[in-house]
């Protein structure tokens, strides 16, 4: 299983509908300070079901919705869709492609979907259990987070191994 593409609209600095295609092997995301690279990492974490606002650098979940610029007004919702190749059937679904979608309105209303079928957040969480994406915190290393692998206390390090086991 691997990541085929990510589609975002209204998510943080991605005001316009944007489609990002990923290839096999090594993909490098590059650009100047503040252009949106870590925002893409946040989008991936968010669509996989991240609920910690703090780990997304916000103070409220609403902070992930495009807040506007001096030329554009804020948008009313944020939507991210992550499409994975599932030919190996690592995910327990009978599809070659699996698309997970998350949408958040300013009202606070949330919508979730797996392959266009509405579902709940916990269905997304459960879908990824046993894939190494839900429980492997070492698979998604945020900016400035590398050192915590070492600075964590011995029991926290042990949790990394529990995730791998």
């Amino acid at each position, binding site marked *: 299983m691997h990541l085929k593409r990510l589609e975002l609209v209204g998510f943080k600095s991605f005001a316009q509908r944007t489609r990002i295609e*990923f290839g*096999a092997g090594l993909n490098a*995301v590059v650009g100047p300070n503040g252009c949106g690279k870590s925002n893409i990492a946040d989008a991936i974490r968010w669509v996989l079901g991240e609920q910690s606002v703090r780990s997304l650098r916000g103070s409220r979940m609403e902070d992930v919705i495009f807040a506007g610029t001096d030329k554009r007004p804020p948008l009313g919702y944020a939507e991210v869709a992550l499409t994975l190749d599932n030919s190996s059937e690592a995910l327990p679904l009978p599809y070659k492609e699996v698309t997970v979608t998350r949408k958040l309105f300013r009202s606070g209303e949330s919508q979730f979907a797996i392959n266009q079928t509405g579902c709940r957040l916990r269905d997304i969480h459960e879908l990824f259990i046993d894939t190494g994406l839900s429980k492997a915190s070492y698979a998604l290393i945020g900016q400035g987070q590398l050192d915590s692998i070492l600075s964590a206390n011995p029991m926290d390090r042990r949790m990394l191994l529990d995730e791998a086991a």
Partner: protein
Amino acid sequence: SRARFLETFAEVRREFRGLFEQLFDGGKADLELLEPDQPLASGIEIIAHLPGKKTQSLALLSGGERALTAIGLLFALLKVRPSPFCLLDEIDAALDEANLDRYIGVLVDYARSHQVIVISHRPKVMEAAESLLGITMAEKGVSQVISLRLAAQQEG
């Protein structure tokens, strides 16, 4: 289960030792169970012995030495229990050029059989990547993506 944990621990430890030696071009490192007779409740100690230097606490290591040690442990975990893809945001920031080259060696080797997404400012990392995704803000505050290079998507 206890057996599964001990088996995973042994594998990660073996990978970590090998990767450390590769990343530091020498030296040796280890992982230890603080309470070997209670593996399911035991914390884990990291021991790092840099080439030519004395084994000291991790705290005394330099910023770059700590980053490279963390990278060794990170890739040991990823090799033993890979995830469908991994996402590494600027983990190379503290590395000098020599350490960067050795890190890229490990990264490229791992990426031969696993999908990796790295965010980086380092030109050598960009050169090593099969796919290059440029993010820009032609309009201030609004991000756009330019696909500068896209490798074929793998099968399966």
